[in-house]
């Protein structure tokens, strides 16, 4: 039953998804609550050219690829905010345009550069072959995330509930917003090696969305999102270990998707099916 624990790669993978979930749960909850779910998706694609460029310049180094991804992701976020201020277009339109360009550029770079890095493992990740460097990155990212969230929690909450009130309380709202965006990109990049660029954002958004169906306060939502996220990670890993030809990244997100649908069906803020059938009126 527990023979999977005998393999170092499985122990690493389990540690990775649980630690990743610790940081992704609060970030994902605020991403969902601030109506930025799709912006998170866009940011994850936007980071690709930075990572590709760093790879082309410095090779397979975790640090330089992280920095490259951070810079590219944040540039797209900043540029789309600027464009929406300076021109008529709304932020989502300019962000979509910029991230699509970034994605195309990134894949272009990766392909031209050659075959040294497997494009497929890049897009879909491989949590079952994590290097120690990646584990350190995930650990650092989560530590930093929890620290920064603790520091900006109150302004972040005020901004999300009542932006006008938050503005009246502090003139440093831009700092809170920027730090939060840094955390989003940082967690995405930490998740890339494990889950791939296309799946990393899933472990942020899906558990947080599912958690909202059950609870009406922030702390329980974040705790529940963590439980869903770590649980899906664990179960998804086991599925891909036990069954042949099941890729780990998609398995993890699909389990999270199952949690989402169950929450949607019976959560008190979802369709609430059980109560409806018990007390028809």
């Amino acid at each position, binding site marked *: 039953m527990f023979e999977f624990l005998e393999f170092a790669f499985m122990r690493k993978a389990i540690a990775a998804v649980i630690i990743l979930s610790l940081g992704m749960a609060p970030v994902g909850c605020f991403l969902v609550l601030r109506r930025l779910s799709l912006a998170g998706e866009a940011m994850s694609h936007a980071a690709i050219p930075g990572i590709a460029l760093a790879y082309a310049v410095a090779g397979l180094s975790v640090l330089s690829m992280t920095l490259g991804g951070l810079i590219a992701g944040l540039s797209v976020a900043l540029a789309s905010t600027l464009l929406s201020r300076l021109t008529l277009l709304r932020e989502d339109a300019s962000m979509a345009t910029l991230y699509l360009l970034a994605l195309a550029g990134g894949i272009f770079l990766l392909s031209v550069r050659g075959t040294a890095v497997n494009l497929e493992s890049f897009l879909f990740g491989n949590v079952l072959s994590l290097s120690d460097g990646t584990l350190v990155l995930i650990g650092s990212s989560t530590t930093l995330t929890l620290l920064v969230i603790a520091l900006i929690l109150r302004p972040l*909450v005020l901004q999300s*509930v009542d932006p006008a009130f938050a503005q009246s309380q502090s003139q440093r709202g831009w700092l809170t917003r920027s730090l939060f965006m840094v955390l989003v990109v940082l967690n995405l990049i930490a998740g890339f090696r494990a889950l791939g660029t296309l799946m990393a954002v899933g472990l942020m958004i899906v558990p947080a969305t599912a958690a909202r169906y059950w609870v*009406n306060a922030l702390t329980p939502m974040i705790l529940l999102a963590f439980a869903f996220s770590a649980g899906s990670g664990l179960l998804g890993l086991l599925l891909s270990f036990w069954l042949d030809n099941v890729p780990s990244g998609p398995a993890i997100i699909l389990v999270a998707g199952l949690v989402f649908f169950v929450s949607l069906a019976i959560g008190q803020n979802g369709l609430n099916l059980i109560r409806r059938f018990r007390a028809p009126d």
Partner: protein
Amino acid sequence: MLGRARPAYSFLRVLYGEGLVIGYGGDPVASKVDFSLSSGEILAVIGYNGSGKSTLVKSILGVTPLLGGRLRWDAGRPTTPVGYLGQLTDFDRRFPMRVIDLAATGGWSQLGFFEGAGRRARRNAEAALERVGLADAADMPLHQLSAGQLQRALFARTIMQDAQLIILDEPFAAVDQSTEADLMALILDWSRQGCALILVMHNLSAVLEHCSSVLLMGRGGAAFGPTHEVLIPEQLVGLGYMAADKPYLNATAASTSAAKVGKYV
């Protein structure tokens, strides 16, 4: 009104503005705005839609920079944030929060950086909810509140702010009569305790009844002064608040002051 207890200290001027020019991004919305505000006083800000009332509020809060003129705080800018209840255009009622949590956010600015909100903060928040008549709804999530209940909860948040200057931007826009009456009583309490209040609103009869001075914002300038000198048809029509062909006051409450103004109409 009778026997209203005055604050023990005399009325101290808190804030005044001279020749203010306000607007966004360099485009003035209103200019030549003068006013002054003392502790225990309720200043009503009225004006047609788009006359710059909310922009003025944001300039006083320091959110929108002034384009000209001077804003002076007699005792220095308050060290604690100004009490503020704005319009709810961007308010997210789906945020996972209970009523008591929302009220408690008003006290956050008094907490130290690493200080948790302890039992005392919780008791204060409960007392604030009691005061606005929401004690029974403390654990309700925000998305289940009616517009009136939400406004009461936001007044509880304002109580928690414990501020010396309180700015309320159209606080009665979406609430029923009994809620408005309850909340107006709370505003009068604040004034009696020595708070300086700025109240942006459209209900002229309430302004006549409760506010000591009025800032009327309008085309080409603004008028400021004691309520009965500003709320006269000449000013209201002249500054674009009322059409010249139908200058009537919507004075539903039969207050004597409203009747007095009615004579001029």
